[in-house]
C-alpha cells in the first residue's frame, strides 16, 4: 500500500479544524446576535408603564402589559403546582419501585415520547379536553397544557436523579426499620435534592417561554384577569399577536415582552445549571 503524502493529509486536517472552529464561532455569534437584538430593541420598551399599565389600542401611547405579565406568572405557577407533585410521584415510581417492570417501561417510553411531542399537539389535546367541554378558552386550560408539557420533564429527571443515589443508603435506612415511604422522602430525596430542583427549574424554564400550547387554550385578552375561566392574557401569545400587527408601538411592546421572557428563561436555565453544578456527568 502506498501511503498518502503527509502534507495532503495535514492540509485536510487543518481545513477541518478551521471549519469546526468557524462553526462553533457561528453558533456563538447567533446566540449573541439574538440576545443583543432582544436586549437592544426590548430595553426601549421597558419602563414603569410596561409593568403597571394595561395595553392600549394601537397608536395610543402609554400602554403596558401588566395583565399579560400577571397572566403568564399565574399560569406558570399553576402549571408548576400541578406538574411537580405528579411528576415527582411518577419519578419515584419509575426510579424506586419499578425499575424493571413492564408498566414502568411503558411509562418511561411514554414520558420520553411526550417530551419530544410538539407542544402544539398538546394544545390541540387540551383544546378538546377542556376548551370544548367547558365551552370557552380559559386560563385553566392554559395552565393544564403547560403542566402536561412539564410533567414528563419532571418525572424523567426525578427518576434519573433517584437512580444515582447509591443503594446502601436505602438499605441502611430500611435496616433501621424506616418504612419505605420515609426512606424515599426523607433519605433518598435529600440525597438527590439538587438534581431534582434542577429538573423542576428546567421544566419551569421550558414552559414559561411556551407559546404554541397557549394559542388555543388560554388564548389572550387585552383586559385584566378577572377569572381563570376566561381567556387569560399572557406574554407569549401577546408577542405573537403584536409582532404580526402592523403597528409600530405594538411591535415595540412585543420586543419588551420578548426581553422579559428571554431574561427570565435564561436566568432560570443558568440557575438550574448553577444549582446542579458539576454533578451532571
Amino acid at each position, binding site marked *: 500500500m502506498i501511503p498518502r503524502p503527509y502534507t495532503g493529509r495535514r492540509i485536510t486536517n487543518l481545513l477541518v479544524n478551521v471549519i469546526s472552529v468557524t462553526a462553533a464561532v457561528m453558533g456563538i455569534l447567533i446566540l449573541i446576535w*439574538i440576545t443583543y437584538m432582544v436586549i437592544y430593541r426590548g430595553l426601549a420598551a421597558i419602563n414603569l408603564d410596561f409593568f403597571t399599565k394595561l395595553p392600549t389600542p394601537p397608536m395610543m401611547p402609554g400602554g403596558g402589559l401588566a395583565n399579560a405579565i400577571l397572566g403568564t406568572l399565574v399560569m406558570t405557577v399553576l402549571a408548576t403546582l400541578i406538574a411537580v407533585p405528579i411528576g415527582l410521584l411518577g419519578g419515584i415510581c419509575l426510579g424506586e419501585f419499578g425499575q424493571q417492570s413492564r408498566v414502568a417501561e411503558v411509562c418511561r417510553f*411514554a414520558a420520553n415520547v*411526550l417530551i*419530544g411531542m410538539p407542544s402544539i399537539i398538546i394544545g390541540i389535546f387540551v383544546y378538546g379536553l377542556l376548551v370544548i367541554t367547558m365551552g370557552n378558552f380559559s386560563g385553566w386550560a392554559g395552565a393544564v397544557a403547560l403542566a402536561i408539557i412539564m410533567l414528563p420533564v419532571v*418525572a424523567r429527571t426525578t427518576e434519573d436523579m433517584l437512580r444515582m443515589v447509591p443503594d446502601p443508603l436505602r438499605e441502611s435506612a430500611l435496616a433501621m426499620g424506616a418504612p419505605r*415511604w420515609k426512606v424515599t422522602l426523607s433519605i433518598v430525596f435529600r440525597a438527590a435534592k439538587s438534581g431534582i430542583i434542577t429538573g423542576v427549574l428546567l421544566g419551569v424554564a421550558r414552559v414559561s417561554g411556551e407559546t*404554541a400550547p397557549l394559542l388555543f387554550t388560554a388564548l389572550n385578552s387585552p383586559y385584566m384577569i378577572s377569572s381563570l375561566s376566561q381567556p387569560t392574557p399572557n406574554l407569549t401569545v401577546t408577542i405573537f399577536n403584536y*409582532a404580526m400587527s402592523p403597528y409600530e408601538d405594538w411591535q415595540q411592546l412585543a420586543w419588551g415582552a420578548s426581553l422579559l421572557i428571554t431574561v427570565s428563561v435564561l436566568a432560570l436555565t443558568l440557575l438550574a445549571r448553577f444549582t446542579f453544578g458539576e454533578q451532571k456527568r
Partner: protein
Amino acid sequence: MLPPETASAAVNYPAPRPRHLQADAIFKGLTVIGAIIVPVIMAGIVWELLAGSLPALQKFGVRFFFTEAWNPVTQNFGAASSIYGTIVSTAIAMMLAVPMSLVIALFLVELAPPWLSKVVGTMIELLAAIPSIIYGMWGLFIFAPFMSKYVQPFLGDTLGFLPLFQGPPLGIGMLTAGIILAFMILPFITAICRDVFALVPPVMKESGYGIGATTWEVTYKVTIPYGAVGVLGAVFLGLGRALGETMAVTFVIGNTHRISASFFAPGNSIASCLANEFAEATEPTYVSSLIALGLVLFVFTFVVQVVSQMLLRRMYRSWSLKI
C-alpha cells in the same frame, strides 16, 4: 451482647404494624398513579386526534393528503402544501444542522482546551434555552431582512440557474425558516454528539493516533463509526424537534397554502398552519381538517421519536457493557 431480657422482648415484639404496611401501600399506589398518568395522556392525545380528524378524513378520503387546496370558504381542504412545507423546511434544517453539529462536537471534544470547551459548550446549549417565539421575533424583524438584503440576492446570483433559488428575495419563506430551524436544533444534536465522541474509549482513539493518523482521520474513521448509532440517534432527535417546531416557523415561513419550487417562496408547515388558523376555525369540517393535520404531525414525530429512542438506548446499553 444483648441482655437476655431484651432478647426475649425482641422475640415477643409484634410483627410489623399493619398501619406501617398500609402507609407504604398507599405511598406506592400514589406513585403508580403519578407514573400511569403519562401513558394515559399519550393515549388521550392519540384518541382525540383520531376522533377529531375522522370527519375530515371521511369526507375527503385519502385525497386529503395529496391535494393542495385549502379553502375555508368552500370548505375544501388538503394537506399537501403543509406536509410539503414541513418536509422541505426540515430537510433544509437537517442539511445545515447535522454537519455543523458534528464539527462543533469535534471542536468541543478534540480541539478546544477543557476550559474553552466548557464555555463554548454552555453557549451552544443556551441556544436551546431560547424560547421558540424569540427565534420568531428575531427571525421576522432581524434575520429575514438580512436574508433578503444579503443572502438571497447572493444565492440568486450564484445558484440562480437552479429553480430552487429563483424568485424575488422576500426574506420570509422556506429557506429562512429552514435556516432558523437549523440553529434551533443544532444544540440538541451537538450535545449528544459531544457525549458520544467523549464516550469513545481513549484506547480506540489513541491507537489511531499511534499509527500516525491526524485528528480528522481519527474522528472520521474511528470516532464516528464507533459512535454511529449514537450520532444517528442524535440526528433523529433533531429531526423530531424540527418537524414540530411551531412559533419560529410561523413567524418566518410566510403562511400561504402553496407548493412552490423555489426555496425563496413563502409556504407553510403543519405546525404553522395550526398555530395560525386553529383558534379562528369554527366550521366542523375546518376544525376537523386542522386536527387531521395535527394527526399527520403526530405520526411523523412519533415514528421519529421511537427510532431515536431505540438507537440511543441501544448505544448506551452496548457501551455500558463494553466500557
